[in-house]
């Protein structure tokens, strides 16, 4: 048997990394992924965009005034580390951009910085997740040789999701990310680490105090988020064990694994026909025909596997990560409400410092209202976007399945025709 079965315990296959480091990867292939030249004209940009995210509606294309692509991953080796730099190209007609075209190089850490800034500024907006830091080496290598390519695609989607967001795409940090040749000076500014600590402390404090009550619509939302997260990640105990904390969508991975194991066996199966064919005389031709059919079908299955690992698995994976994002957003909204409630209670119970407290309470009240409205608005947007993305991924998977079966059908039908042509007096029923 091949050595490609996926072990149940993956811990030894995980690459262990520090929080802030990029994933260390070994890649020889650093050229443009699909081998095609970068488009230059706006219309071909539109086509490029369509190819990558063809689930977006016509509406988005017509009003889009900013186009971002991520490509050209290149390994960088320094004395202390190795990492990958991605080229980020922006084309825009927006007036708040000085130029209409930008080209910068960014590493994974830079994307992480951008995302954390966006979340900081807009705690209750749903910021699309980034591809994960950790990689299950065994699985990725088996299904999709080019980890870099997978990550590049995910980073590309990330930036596109941001650029399509009505609020986030106008973020200062986003603009800096897209335009600054050197991001380092910008990254040093801002609260950064300390603010993260502060948020955690507040969150803990608030959870201790407890939330008075969640407004109805957010209670409904929370329930949905919990259920959604469950559906995306849920599985029986067996697969829980298999995927552990990997947060990959177990369903799609299982189907991928089972396909791979099937193809492995097919590869052992076809030679048994070929070898037997060599022994026989009259039967040589049909037996060799059989061997050839099995080989062809296994090739089709491999193509199917490739497609699954490039389209469905990443799409579901992204929404598993989204589920986590949603939970975080809900938590942050809860915290904002809790902070307001705490201060408000203080205002009601304390008799001193009424004026100062009132001011603080007003600020927190505004903040809470803004947070709630942001989330409400973004929620609908997110749901629509999720539906479009997953629908498109499922349709694509279904189409690929149909294609796979159609190709296999053709293989067997042509075998049948050749056999019946040989034997005298063809048999009747084609099932």
């Amino acid at each position, binding site marked *: 048997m091949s050595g490609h079965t996926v072990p149940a315990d993956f811990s030894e296959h995980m690459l262990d990394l520090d929080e802030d480091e990029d994933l260390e990867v070994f890649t020889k292939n650093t050229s443009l992924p699909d081998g095609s030249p970068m488009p230059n004209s706006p219309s071909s940009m539109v086509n490029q965009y369509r190819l990558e995210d063809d689930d977006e509606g016509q509406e988005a294309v017509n009003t889009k005034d900013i186009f971002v692509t991520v490509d050209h991953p290149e390994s960088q080796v320094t004395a202390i580390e190795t990492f990958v730099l991605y080229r980020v190209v922006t084309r825009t007609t927006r007036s708040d951009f000085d130029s209409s075209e930008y080209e910068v190089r960014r590493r994974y850490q830079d994307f992480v910085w951008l995302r954390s800034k966006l979340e900081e500024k807009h705690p209750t907006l749903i910021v699309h997740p980034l591809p994960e830091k950790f990689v299950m080496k065994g699985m990725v290598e088996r299904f999709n040789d080019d980890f870099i390519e997978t990550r590049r695609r995910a980073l590309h989607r990330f930036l596109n999701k941001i650029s399509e967001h009505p609020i986030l795409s106008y973020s200062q940090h986003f603009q800096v990310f897209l335009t600054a040749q050197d991001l380092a000076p910008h990254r040093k500014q801002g609260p950064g680490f300390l603010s993260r600590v502060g948020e955690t402390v507040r969150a803990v404090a608030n959870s201790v105090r407890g939330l008075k009550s969640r407004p109805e619509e957010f209670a409904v939302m929370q329930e*949905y988020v919990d*259920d*959604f997260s469950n*559906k995306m990640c*849920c*599985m029986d105990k067996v697969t829980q064990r298999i995927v552990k904390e990997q947060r990959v969508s*177990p*369903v799609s991975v*299982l*189907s991928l694994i*089972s*396909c791979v*194991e*099937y193809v*492995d*066996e*097919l590869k*052992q*199966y076809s030679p*048994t*026909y070929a*070898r*037997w064919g060599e*022994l*026989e005389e*009259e*039967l040589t031709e*049909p*037996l060799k*025909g*059989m061997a050839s*059919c099995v080989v062809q079908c296994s090739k089709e299955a491999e193509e199917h596997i490739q497609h699954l690992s490039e389209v469905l698995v990443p799409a579901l994976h992204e929404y598993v990560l989204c589920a986590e994002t949603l939970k975080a957003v809900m938590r942050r909204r809860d915290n904002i409400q809790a902070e307001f409630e705490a201060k408000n209670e203080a205002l009601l119970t304390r008799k001193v410092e009424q004026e100062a407290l009132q001011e603080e309470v007003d600020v927190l009240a505004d903040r809470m209202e803004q947070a709630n409205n942001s989330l409400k608005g973004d929620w609908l947007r997110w749901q629509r976007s999720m*539906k479009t993305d*997953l*629908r498109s991924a*499922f*349709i694509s998977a*279904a*189409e690929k*399945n*149909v294609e*796979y*079966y*159609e190709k*296999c*059908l053709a293989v*067997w*039908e042509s*075998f*049948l025709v050749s*056999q*019946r042509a040989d*034997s005298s007096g063809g*048999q009747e*029923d*084609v*099932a």
Partner: protein
Amino acid sequence: MADDGREESLGTDDDSDQTGADGSLNNTMVEEGSTLMRRMEICVAEAEKRSGKNAVSMQETYTVYLIETRPMDAVAEGRNPAPDCLWRRYSEFELLRNYLIVTYPYIVVPPLPEKRAEFVWHKLSADNMDPDFVERRRVGLENFLLRVASHPVLSNDKILYYFLTEEHGWKEAVYETGFQAKADSRLRALSATFRVRNPDKCFMEMKHYSDELQSHTSQLLRARARVADRLYGVYKVHGNYGRVFSEWSAIEKEMGDGLQSAGHHMDAYAASIDDILEEEEHYADQLKEYLFYAEALRAVCRKHELTQFELEMASQDLISKKQQREELATGIVRTFSLKGMTNKLFGQEAPEQREARLKLLEDLIAEGEETVKEKTIERAEHVEKAWVDIQRFKEQKDKDLREALINYAVMQISMCKKGIQVWSNAKECFLKM
């Protein structure tokens, strides 16, 4: 598989009950497809569980199979008489076959379906009492009977006829043929190693072929079982999708309906593999038949080796006896013998003794010559008859296996069509989402 329709040539000429040397009924008007013989429609209609005490008085459960027979001409004339029937268990089929292979060592005797389930993949039961296994065995036993009853030589056998028609007393009749003794000696001979000087080249090639055929078919069957196992996994995993979609649809408003119906299609897809693989087991059974046929072919080749060996031994023996006679007559010792040595040491024997010994030798030589004649005929007959049957077997094998491969392709096509159907439906559901 055996010819479609259930026409077999079988049986007895009404007024002749002569039995030939090998137990077959003599019918001077026997011809291929000749209609002087009564034809019989045969089938193994049912299987039933029985309980009873076995030979060592222990309670056991076993399966019996119902054999139904009807005269072919009655059927042809449109009459529909009730079939004659009797029950037989697997061990009785085995007994019949053992009788046949001993009685007709120049025939590639059709094999029985496997005694125990082999090449099992994980969902397939290895239990002999499993209903699917019993059903496949029923089909296999029927196939066996049809093959035997349509064989130009075997179909004339009286014991076969009684097997089909006499429920009681059949076993005794088999043992009365004295085949058991032959069976024992055959077993000894076939498992012995002996060096044959001049085996027929064609038979040796055929023996080699039978070994290869066994090897290749068993490899193929093993690989197929593993593929079936994995394919089962692929389909069943989609049951997970079915479950996730249906649960997920409960929490979605717009997507709910689409997800729910897609989920149903996924469940249907997952369930469809059971029938698909059940059908494929029949294909596996067709291959298994030829796996076992290979053994039968090998046995015929070994029998040739045996007859050749016996002839060589007999010839060798005759030669050495003639040499002894010569030595005794001329007094010239060419070969070493203890008698010769003792004669030299202790003096020669008296002339009367010498005469006696010479006479004995002459008798032995005469016997030996008869033996050599017999063995020569035996060998030649076996070669001739076996070669005829081997050719028949080859043709049958090529035809049957080609058909089996075609059937497999048909099954694959059906499976693909179902897959296209299900996934097109699923796609429609997703489009409606």
